[in-house]
């Protein structure tokens, strides 16, 4: 039965990781239009979660978020001379966030979260069925 318990631990670590992933995506979407206050200040830079496979305390191969990294791709540019952050040519730098990409990421995180939840459910069901041997 120890295997079943570590199955639950692995799935739980997966759920935690997907939650962080979801949070990072939400932060990116929330800041999709966060510009700097003046032309020299950088706008919000998109972040990506770093997931890494790790061995948990009970020996299961779980997953862990190693933090987040900045997406170093180019910023979007928009022509808006009246904006306080516009440069001398009238262009404003906008965050390198693509809401569509973030939405896809969120969708994927939700699906993976559900799959992990299902695994916990299955493991619990198996343990319960085994315990029923005691009851009869």
């Amino acid at each position, binding site marked *: 039965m120890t295997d079943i318990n570590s199955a639950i631990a692995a799935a739980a670590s997966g759920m935690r990781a997907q939650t962080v992933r979801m949070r990072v995506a939400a932060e990116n979407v929330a800041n999709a239009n966060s510009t700097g206050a003046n032309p020299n200040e950088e706008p919000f830079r998109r972040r990506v979660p770093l997931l890494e*496979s790790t061995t948990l305390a009970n020996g299961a*191969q*779980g997953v862990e978020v190693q933090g987040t990294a900045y997406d170093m791709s180019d910023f979007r540019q928009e022509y808006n001379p009246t904006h306080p952050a516009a440069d001398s040519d009238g262009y404003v730098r906008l965050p390198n966030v693509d809401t569509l990409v973030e939405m896809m990421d969120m969708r994927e995180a939700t699906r993976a979260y559900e799959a992990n939840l299902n*695994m916990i459910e299955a493991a619990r069901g198996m343990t319960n*069925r085994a315990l029923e041997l005691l009851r009869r």
Partner: protein
Amino acid sequence: MDLANSPFFGLLRQRLDHLSERQRLISENIANASTPGYRPRDLDTTSFDRMLASAANSGGVTVARTNPGHMSSGGGGGGSGVQVVTRDDSETTIDGNAVVLEEQMARAAETRMQFETGLALYQKGLDLVRLASRAPGR
């Protein structure tokens, strides 16, 4: 009589152990469904089948033991003859992750069904023992 190590119960117990280990591996695969470079693992079923065959054979031998004091075979041969192998799913993403959630879920459902079957058989076995140990007429 060592009931838990009798060929029937021993074999079933090994089967259940094997299935819960497989379920753990699937759980790990699903947890790592978005880890770059992760390759899913599974139990090597062919080696399990081999172990099962040898266990079934040694089960037959145990029945023919001439002395009840002989060492019990522990319900089966090879012990942990089962190996963990990496088994990629049908797709590998660009970051090197080879987990396909659907395939893992299907595998989990299959494992769970087999586990339930094993448990039901175990239950039946216990029922038989109970039946045999009941006083006649009750």
